[in-house]
């Protein structure tokens, strides 16, 4: 990469750390460190909420998914605006009004300590591990592209974020998130414009070529429990997932608890409702445009440069033969794509339709050679060779102008830092408030809890970096952790729904939570093809039904014992 690009990346990292630490003023007490003394404006909180869920995977994985699979992934977010509105009028007033530090603290006030501790524990386990995977995904890509060691890649992403989160708490996290969101959106818009300039046909022809391969197919109205990317999975399963994530996950709840009123808190959530679908569509469109760009420019046979080197060394003859076929097929596809554009420019519908048919056949030929190359890479490396995460980084480094490549790489690192800083901050809060202050030391000066919070942030940061460093070799374990997360996400939402229902009791909430997780576990093992989006629906509904029944049974038993003159339990 050109020196100017490195100057931009390093300059941005330095700016972020300095800015984050400068924002630590006013964090000399626990409330300032964990909740910014509830002083943050709604728009800053809203941008921070968006930044926390926009990770590096969005910048490189989702764009790559746009290039290989098209726009249909956007359906995943269709439930988000509805979920934000529901949360704005239900859970947010409850949580903000109760003056709690964590969402789980609210559950002890409403139910009991064991429900609070179990939900907080589940949050710590899943978020602690996922924090590591958030760093690992871009670190693996940077390692392959730039030839860095994994440890060095992890350090570049992890150390600045841990540093400013540890010193500045939620204030630093929020204000750095605001700046980084500006950088990320600037990079997305700049890359989109550059792609439109670089593609040698008109934007309309480019979209027709993308559409011919199905990459502009957004809506799938079929109803399927096994397909994550359908309209109904997004609207129903997605709504429950977003309700769980934004309503009960401390990494999100902590952001809007820092707003200075209930209305500011729910207005901040609506920023995500505003921008998430358009932003996600734009991210996917970048991938689609990169796909079109590579119709006229020879793409790599394998996008992962590390795999490419290994395959070339181990199987030079077989890889050479594939490269020769690839060059011929890509050349033929280039000619076919240009013929589509020319036929359309001449206004010949029959000519355009026939050119489109030829183009599709050429595209199928290119896809066949790519599939064979990926299978060869898998045999040689012994690793899964799906290289979707490498498509955009290769395009950025090979074809973006000097300066813009540095801007995009800085935006990828910024996205990773946003996600982990928000999570570290919330992990520290749950550790200190829900465990240390609840079970270890209930009374102590504010400074003591502040020091413990900073230490907890640092410890979680080191834990996340260690998990990220070894995540490359922990592929199956990471999958287990992700599946484990989907076991209880909907169930925790169910507990919060029960908390808002007047007749619910502590035993009902606790048994409902266990039943919800068991139901999701049974579906997961009994019907593993059911999409994880539906796990949230199953978990939440089971908890509400079981919790309501147990609570009703408890009330009946209490009435019966009162009628028989037994002393009433407190």
């Amino acid at each position, binding site marked *: 990469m050109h020196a100017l690009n490195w100057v931009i990346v390093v300059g941005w990292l330095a700016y972020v750390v300095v800015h984050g630490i400068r924002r630590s003023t006013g964090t000399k007490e626990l409330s300032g460190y964990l909740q910014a003394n509830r002083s943050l404006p709604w728009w800053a909180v809203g941008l921070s909420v968006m930044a926390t869920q926009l990770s590096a995977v969005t910048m490189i994985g989702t764009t790559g998914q746009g290039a290989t699979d098209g*726009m249909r992934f*956007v359906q995943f977010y269709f439930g988000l*605006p509805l979920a*934000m*509105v529901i949360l*704005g009028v239900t859970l947010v007033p409850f949580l903000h009004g109760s003056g709690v530090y964590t969402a789980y603290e609210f559950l002890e006030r409403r139910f009991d300590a064991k429900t609070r501790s179990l939900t907080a524990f589940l949050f710590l386990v899943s978020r602690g591990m996922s924090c590591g995977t958030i760093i690992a995904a871009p670190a693996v890509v940077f390692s392959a592209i730039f030839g860095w060691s994994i440890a060095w890649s992890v350090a570049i992403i992890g150390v600045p974020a841990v540093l400013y989160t540890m010193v500045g708490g939620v204030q630093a996290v929020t204000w750095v998130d605001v700046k980084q969101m500006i950088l990320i959106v600037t990079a997305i818009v700049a890359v989109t414009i550059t792609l439109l300039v670089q593609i040698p046909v008109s934007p309309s022809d480019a*979209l*027709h070529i*993308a*559409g*011919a391969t*199905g990459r*502009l*197919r*957004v*809506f799938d109205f079929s109803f399927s429990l096994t397909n994550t990317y359908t309209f109904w999975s997004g609207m129903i399963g997605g709504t429950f997932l977003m309700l769980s994530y934004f309503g009960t996950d401390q990494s999100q709840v902590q952001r809007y608890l820092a707003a200075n*009123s*209930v*209305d*500011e808190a*729910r*207005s901040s959530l*609506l920023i995500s*409702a*505003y921008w998430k*679908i*358009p932003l996600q*569509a734009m991210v996917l469109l970048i991938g689609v445009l990169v796909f079109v760009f590579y119709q006229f420019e020879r793409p790599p046979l394998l996008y992962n440069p590390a795999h490419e080197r290994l395959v070339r060394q181990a199987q030079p003859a077989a890889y050479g033969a594939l490269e020769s076929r690839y060059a011929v097929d890509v050349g033929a596809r280039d000619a076919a794509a240009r013929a589509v554009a020319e036929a359309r420019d001449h206004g010949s519908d029959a000519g355009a*339709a026939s050119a*489109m048919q030829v183009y599709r056949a050429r595209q199928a030929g290119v896809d066949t050679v790519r599939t064979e190359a990926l299978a060869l890479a898998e045999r040689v490396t012994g690793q899964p060779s799906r290289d979707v995460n490498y498509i955009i980084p290769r395009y950025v480094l090979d074809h973006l102008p000097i300066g813009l490549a540095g801007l995009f790489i800085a935006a990828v690192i910024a996205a990773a830092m946003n996600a982990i800083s928000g999570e570290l901050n919330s992990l520290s809060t749950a550790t200190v408030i829900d465990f240390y202050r609840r079970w270890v030391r209930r009374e102590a000066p504010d400074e003591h809890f502040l020091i413990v919070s900073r230490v907890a942030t640092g410890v979680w940061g080191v834990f996340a970096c260690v998990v990220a460093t070894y995540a490359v070799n922990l592929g199956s374990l990471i999958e287990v952790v992700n599946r484990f997360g989907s076991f209880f996400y909907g169930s925790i939402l169910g507990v919060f729904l029960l908390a808002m229902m007047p007749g619910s009791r502590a035993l009902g909430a606790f048994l409902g939570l266990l039943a919800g997780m068991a139901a999701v576990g049974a579906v997961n093992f009994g019907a593993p093809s059911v999409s994880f989006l539906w796990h949230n629906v199953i978990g939440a509904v089971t908890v509400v039904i079981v919790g309501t029944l147990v609570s009703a049974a408890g009330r009946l038993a209490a009435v019966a014992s009162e009628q028989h003159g037994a002393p009433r339990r407190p």
Partner: protein
Amino acid sequence: MSDDQTGSRRFRRTLASVMLVQIVTLVVLWLLQRHYTS
């Protein structure tokens, strides 16, 4: 006018515009699919 009333008015106004933006976005995506996917 109190802060509460101002906040509630802003929330309702934002809510209406959120719904409008979502409808416009979905219509644009649907037109994109309909026009370009053959």
